[in-house]
């Protein structure tokens, strides 16, 4: 009977797995994304989980979601709205009702849609669909819990362990829906539960039962076919932004011939960087969990002084605590990478939600004139390149570098081609023993062109020196409070950062050369803004996108690019921090602004709508 199922071929589709935070939706979503990437689809994912470790079961606050966007063409975002929703309980249905496309497929576990469950999700009637006004949907209602328990009755598992496999039954159903062969999923599960073979087997059984259920009952819906895309040949893995950031730092350390050191303190959503680097002992990485945020950066500064490639990872509140120490690294002119995975603020704010509200803090959040480099990663996989660049600039220019990512790209994942490291630029520290000047070497002797001071590392004979937070004399490197000298040192530290513009790529423009609207963004909104630009083009409008990865210093052609277009809109997930920064840098620049601070990614449809209004105004 399966052959009667209607097969629909699509360019792209959005699937959202949603359930209680104990339902294993993150694992389900991750496996499905990986399967799809292996199958040859483009993917972009968005885990959206609650701050509570385990909110009360079945309640609205406990809903955990994982969204994946699959496509046969380039995919830039996890998508605005879902074509398929897996709702493991009524709360998951209710929370996601606003992101459903018309005629979407909803898969529910009927065992979890009983009177009690409906009450926990604050439904007032017995029919949640009518109550939510869901009329045009394709419902796949399956007694998943019952079927899973039945299917696993010979496995000798207790009731709770058996029930925990219901997410795999749902995954099996979705695999059937998208014609995904199960072999890879089985392989992934075997790896995941390699130490618990019986659990692996139970999960595989539930997965297979789910798939067969779909196949045998040919549920009442159509199945989807997303053609695979011919990607650039090579080896691929699925990677999220935090992992890519970690790998970028490792790659930079290898290129520079330096040992990698991470001093960090756990903080959402940056902790996975600490986790990843703590695991990589075989690569010789020292990752230490310090007693607090300040000690995190201070151990890193110590390691940098001792000659390591040093980094610290944090989020906004942690960056605030680190500011005095960052100032020390500015003053001592030591290389250091500070990763700020931005989250909703101020204060504790919304730890699991994403924003771009730390830009001004990164640029200016220190006492004194304290210039440094700010780099922002644009996508989960770009975190690799951004971290590599951050480390390169830190080491080669003897400066702290703040790398801004955000919760969205840190947790979102995409297929990533394992890079050919020989194609990445070299990283060459300027060591003190390369100093060839006529005057004796001193700690603050500089390369004339880049103004970078030479790096002398403890253990190097003949270069013993003292540095610190006090102002130093430009020539003798001894402590100085001389007024003219301070002016000169302030200017020199700024000029050193400004000159980095000579060493970074120019700003690139995507889209129409003769665009009527230039969209400007920075960091983790790249995907949404790119899709918005495409959306405008599909409507026959001429649009372009200039997306910034290098924020301080700005690329050399910034002013030229921004002044070329009649209308410019700066879109960011804050109240206008980058717009203000650019206005300060470019006299007479009067851009439009689009600002949203909701802790959620941009909505592409909304962007297109707003940009259209600006174009037509």
């Amino acid at each position: 009977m399966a052959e009667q199922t209607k097969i629909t071929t699509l360019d792209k589709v959005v699937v959202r797995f949603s359930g209680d935070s104990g339902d294993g939706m993150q694992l389900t979503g991750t496996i499905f994304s990986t399967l799809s990437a292996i199958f040859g689809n483009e993917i972009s994912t968005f885990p959206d989980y609650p701050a509570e470790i385990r909110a009360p079961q079945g309640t609205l606050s406990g809903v955990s979601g994982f969204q994946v966007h699959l496509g046969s063409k380039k995919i830039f975002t996890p998508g605005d709205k879902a074509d398929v929703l897996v709702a493991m309980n009524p709360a998951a249905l209710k929370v996601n009702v606003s992101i459903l496309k018309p005629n979407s497929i909803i898969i529910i576990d009927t065992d979890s849609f009983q009177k009690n469950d409906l009450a926990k999700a604050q439904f007032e009637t017995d029919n949640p669909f009518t109550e939510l006004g869901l009329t045009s949907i394709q419902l796949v209602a399956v007694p998943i819990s019952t079927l899973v328990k039945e299917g696993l009755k010979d496995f000798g598992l207790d009731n709770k362990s058996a029930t925990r496999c219901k997410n795999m039954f749902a995954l099996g159903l979705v695999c059937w829906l998208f014609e995904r062969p199960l072999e890879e999923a089985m392989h992934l599960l075997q790896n995941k539960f390699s130490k618990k073979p019986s659990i692996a087997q139970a999960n595989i059984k539930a997965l297979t039962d789910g798939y067969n259920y779909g196949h045998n009952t040919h549920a009442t819906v159509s199945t989807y076919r997303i053609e695979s895309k011919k990607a650039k040949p090579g080896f691929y893995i699925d990677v999220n932004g935090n992992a890519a950031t970690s790998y970028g730092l490792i790659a930079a350390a290898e290129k520079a011939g330096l040992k990698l050191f991470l001093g960090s303190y756990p903080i959402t959503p940056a902790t996975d960087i600490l986790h990843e680097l703590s695991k990589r002992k075989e690569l010789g990485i020292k990752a230490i969990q310090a007693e607090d945020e300040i000690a995190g950066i201070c151990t890193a500064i110590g390691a940098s002084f001792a000659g390591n490639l040093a980094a610290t990872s944090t989020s906004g509140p942690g960056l605030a605590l680190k500011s005095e120490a960052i100032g020390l690294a500015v003053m001592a002119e030591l290389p250091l990478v500070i990763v700020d995975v931005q989250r909703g603020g101020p204060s504790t704010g919304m730890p699991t939600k994403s924003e771009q509200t730390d830009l001004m803090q990164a640029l200016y959040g220190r006492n004194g004139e304290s210039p440094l480099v700010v780099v922002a990663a644009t996508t989960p996989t770009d975190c690799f390149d951004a971290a590599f660049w951050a480390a390169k600039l830190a080491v080669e220019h003897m400066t702290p570098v703040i790398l801004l990512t955000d919760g969205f790209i840190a947790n979102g994942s995409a297929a990533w081609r394992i890079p050919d490291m020989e194609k990445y630029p070299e990283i060459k520290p300027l060591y003190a023993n390369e100093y060839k000047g006529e005057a004796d070497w001193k700690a603050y002797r500089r390369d004339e062109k880049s103004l970078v001071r030479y790096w002398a590392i403890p253990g190097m004979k003949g270069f013993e020196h003292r540095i610190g937070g006090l102002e130093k004399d430009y020539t003798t490197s001894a402590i100085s409070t001389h007024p003219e000298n301070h002016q000169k040192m302030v200017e020199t530290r700024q000029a050193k950062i400004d000159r980095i513009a000579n060493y970074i790529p120019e700003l690139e423009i995507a889209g129409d050369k003769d665009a009527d609207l230039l969209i400007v963004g920075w960091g983790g909104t790249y995907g949404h803004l790119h899709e918005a630009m495409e959306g405008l083009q599909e409507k026959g409008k001429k649009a372009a996108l200039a997306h910034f990865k290098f924020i301080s210093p700005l690329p050399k052609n910034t002013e030229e690019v921004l002044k070329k277009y009649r209308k410019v809109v700066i879109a960011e997930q804050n109240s206008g921090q980058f717009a203000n920064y650019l206005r300060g840098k470019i006299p007479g620049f009067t851009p439009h602004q689009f600002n949203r601070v909701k802790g959620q990614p941009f909505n592409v449809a909304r962007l297109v709508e707003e940009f259209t209004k600006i174009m037509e105004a």
Partner: protein
Amino acid sequence: MEIQEIKYQAKDYKSDQYVRWCPGCGDHAVLNCLHKAMAELNINPKDMAVISGIGCSSRLPYYMNTYGFHTIHGRGAAIATGVKTANSDLSVWLITGDGDCLAIGGNHFIHAVRRNVDINIVLFNNRIYGLTKGQYSPTSERGFVSKSSPYGTVEDPFIPAELALGARGNFFARAIDVDLKNTTSVLTDSARHKGTSVVEVLVNCVIFNDGIHKNITDKDFRADRTIFLRHGEKMIFGKEENKGIVLDGLKLKAVTIGEDGYTLDDVLIHDAHTKDNTLHMMLAMMNNENGLPIALGVIRDAEAPVYDQCVEQQIKDVQSKNPTRKLHDFLMKGEVWEVK
């Protein structure tokens, strides 16, 4: 071929910078002792990193002809931890004061001690804030009158030894600035100890807290009011060297040998190396008000796993089981698929 061993002199550790402490400040003496201790240890100046926080004593790295890093207030312990963990071949010193170490830097201090990272902490305790011109510190006695406590403080002080041992410290020594010989020897011992060592040096602030330690440092009664402890030796003190420390029930007691039935056999022998810190704590807490001498010298010097060595060892252990050394090779071992 003749190999000549280099023997460093105290002057090899002196930098060309003019020492800016006030004339008569106790810090001068400690600096000289440190130069002498370095020479005795024969550490190559290139392999030495002297880290400090903020405060009068924290200026010290500028006066050393070694690698030095004058950092920010209170964070020296964390920075020194990073230096040592990054390169365990270096001899790492932390120069700090009672405010820097025990007030703003208290958290980093206790955690450095707890981790037992192999750094040598020299705590200059003058019981006052000097650089900010005379406020009470976390080691000032209750009731101490200062610019920020014009009616006397209403808080109890830390006793550095109690804090260090409470944080599970394995090396604690106490010295006084005017006793150059013993300060040098204590600093030398602290460098030889593997793990965090804490040397509290009681220093005089000639401007804001002159004579704060006078009741024990004054030559007239130093011998009777202090005891210099040496591992393996009897706890004897006094001008006549006729007084000793004995255990009286669960308490320490100072006695005169030959009086009240006490003989030399009753006097305790100092065991700095024992893991149990009970007696070390009691010795460190002795004070004149209890009729006991202030303990100087190495009070505790016990062996324990050393943080920076453990970090290195863990890497070696993992590497012995896992041959992957490059990022690319690691990535290729993951859930990889190939596009041809």
